[in-house]
């Protein structure tokens, strides 16, 4: 067992956890952060993408002990008081959400990209979401949404 302290979506968080738990399990089971999805569990699908110190990582391949002292952000961070973030609005408008399973992870990858690059090229958007799989949309609408959000 270890005690970890970290910033979770801008607030202080603490937990006593078993060493072998992943960040994905701790976020979902201890903090009820349900936007973080388990898809493949082996770092391929990107449904569990969260930001660790502002950089996207797979929560399924990150031991929770690695979050100690770090900043963790999930999709819950984006909307405030029931108002969607402009990036989320853009996803809705472009029809970038179908079944929705990939959406939280996709949003976090796109959010990290836009934090780093205000007006990304198509190539940069492609690269930015290359670690997130979507089996519904065919990516076109997602690319459009990120492009639209970058122009806001």
């Amino acid at each position, binding site marked *: 067992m270890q005690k970890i302290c970290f910033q979770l979506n801008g607030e202080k968080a603490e937990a006593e956890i078993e060493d072998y738990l992943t960040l994905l399990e701790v976020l979902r089971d201890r903090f009820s952060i349900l936007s973080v999805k388990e898809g493949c569990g082996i770092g391929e699908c990107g449904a569990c993408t969260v930001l660790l110190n502002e950089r996207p990582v797979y929560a399924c391949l990150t*031991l929770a002990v690695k979050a100690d002292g770090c900043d963790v952000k999930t999709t819950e961070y984006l909307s405030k008081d029931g108002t969607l973030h402009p990036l989320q609005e853009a996803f809705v408008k472009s029809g970038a959400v179908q079944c929705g399973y990939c959406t939280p992870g996709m949003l976090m990858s796109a959010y990290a990209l836009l934090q780093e690059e205000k007006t990304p090229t198509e190539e940069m958007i492609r690269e930015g979401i290359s670690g997130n799989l979507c089996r519904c949309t065919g990516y076109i609408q997602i690319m459009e949404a990120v492009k639209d959000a970058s122009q806001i």
Partner: protein
Amino acid sequence: MLPRFRCLVPKNKKEALDMLKDEGNTRVLAGGTDLLVDIRKYTCCPETLIDITRIREFKRPFDRVSGILSPAATHAFASGSGEIKQDFPALALGCAQVGSPQIRNMATIGGNIANACPAADSVPPLLIYDTRLTIESQGEEREEALEGFLLSPYRSSLKRDELITAIKLKKLKGYRFGFKRLSIRAALSIGRLSVAWAVKERSGAYEDVKIAVGSCTPVAFRAREAEMFLKEKPVCGGAVKEAEEMITAGIREKTGERPTHAFKLPILRNILTEAL
């Protein structure tokens, strides 16, 4: 859920080396992008993981003066750092093509080397920079060339209680560099062929050429014979074709005939023609 294990988080190198000595069934955890997948698939069942990413001595990812990379430097750092792009451009190119942004943010160069995967994308670039590793265990230190360190797929000369503590690259001046990787789809999938090169020309002839090839043989290799052959040969002429022949013949000798040769070897020849 992952099978149970303990995870120790040493604060400095000495603590880590003591833990490696004292603990029984351990594995070193760096980024974890390979190790946690193996643990999840039960292909590796350690009782204790030792997370080396918080070691004080490894905090600084790169020291420009000595050309030393921290084993905990991530692929995102190696592909994005202005200093690496300038001093070791082939490494930056290679690391940019690993996995996905999420993988590159966690996966480390030390882990890529220690895992000894034949398709490790950072290895061919590291080979052309004549990379040497500092390897330490409790009370002992040795240095070894990366070229000899890798023994066979997923096997290296690293002993159970040893840790890679520094990755030293040699700067090459006056060369042009490149890296090319072939895989089934652009992102995520494992490399099927990777080539790194450094070429120095003088008055229409090759002064020095370094070529490293990954994912073709059990261990990524430097094409030493072809490199020697190309020395002082004119740039325009048949020498490149002959060198390509040497390299592909060498691969056939190491692996025997393989079905993948039908596409790998012609593509390798094309990449080399373009590069040289």
